[in-house]
């Protein structure tokens, strides 16, 4: 088919995303065919989320998604395993240090538990 040739079709591809609850991010579900986004949205929920909770649905024309190409996926998603400094893993020795000073480490579990404390 010629470059940029225009044809009329009922079958445009839409990618469907949904959110399960207030805490969850939008998750890609699947794709469907529809002539426009209104019809796509009218069909999306019952095609892919019949048996799960859903609080929001997004449809996006596939043409509007710039995703990695096959090559980019291969080349851009690889990383060296030397990023401990970004994670708590690189700071594990602190636990021992604090113990010596008779203190507990403020780890992820501890810090995230503070949402309860803050309310008091």
């Amino acid at each position, binding site marked *: 088919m010629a470059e940029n040739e225009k044809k009329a079709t009922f079958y445009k591809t839409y990618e469907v995303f949904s959110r399960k609850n207030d805490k969850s991010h939008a998750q890609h579900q699947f794709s469907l065919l529809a002539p426009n986004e209104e019809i796509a949205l009218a069909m999306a929920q*019952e095609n892919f989320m019949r048996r799960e909770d859903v609080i929001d649905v997004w449809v996006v024309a596939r043409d509007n998604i710039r995703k990695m190409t096959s090559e980019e996926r291969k080349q851009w998603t690889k990383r060296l395993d030397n990023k401990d400094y970004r994670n708590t893993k690189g700071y594990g020795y602190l636990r021992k240090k604090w113990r010596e000073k008779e203190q507990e480490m403020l780890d992820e579990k501890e810090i995230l538990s503070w949402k309860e404390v803050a309310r008091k």
Partner: protein
Amino acid sequence: MSLVETAEQAKQDAAYKEALVEVLYQLADDDFIISYRGSEWLGLAPHIEEDVAFSSITQNTMGHAMLFYQLLEELGEGDADALAHERISNERRNGTYFEIKNGSGTYLEEPQYDWALAVVRNYLYEAFKKVKLEEALKSSYAPLRNTADKVLMEQPYHLGHWKTWITQLQDSSQEAKERIQSRLDEAWKQIGDAFELGPKADDILAKEILSSSETLKQRWLDSVKETLTYVPNGDLASELGNGRAKEHTDQLDQALATLSEVYNSDREAVW
């Protein structure tokens, strides 16, 4: 009229109960027959994705019919399955427009079904159902209020779905426009009885079980006029008869024969 809280309470006033069951039969039978017509469409919709979405609506609608049959069951009218399967056509109270076939042929052979009829009928039905259920929220019968409230939770998706379809088709190609318009003309001639309250209308109003036929009709007209770019001239008519007074077409008989074929082969058996 003070609130009637339970089925037991309703049964103590014979006139109240008689009027109440009329309303419940209307709600149950409407949902049941429209859902039956929807189930015939399964596998035959214009588009696979739509087939799947449409079927969810059909299932939900049958679920709603079940809720209303259960209210009748509580009032001693018989069990929900018997109410759905055993009653012959002149015991049914559904609006006649909702019972007509999806097109010529049957779902098994030569189903010359018309998507314009599906879109127009389902849209008009869901708009009507919303009005009727919203009025039922004010009913003197508390269990009806509660059920109406529950059904209204998932019904907006149904109305939204069909509104999308009719909105898109009514202003698209010339052919689509004509098909939609001629189905609207047909609907105007056949949907009139849906707004009736049947032989117990006076009691239904006096006992505040539901609002008047005029209210239902006016609210419905106001709502569909906001969506439809073409509204047929003239008053609504009931050319197929008055379903609320148990008058029906032979198309309902055909539907009942099909939907109860297995059930009737042995009513005592467990299926």
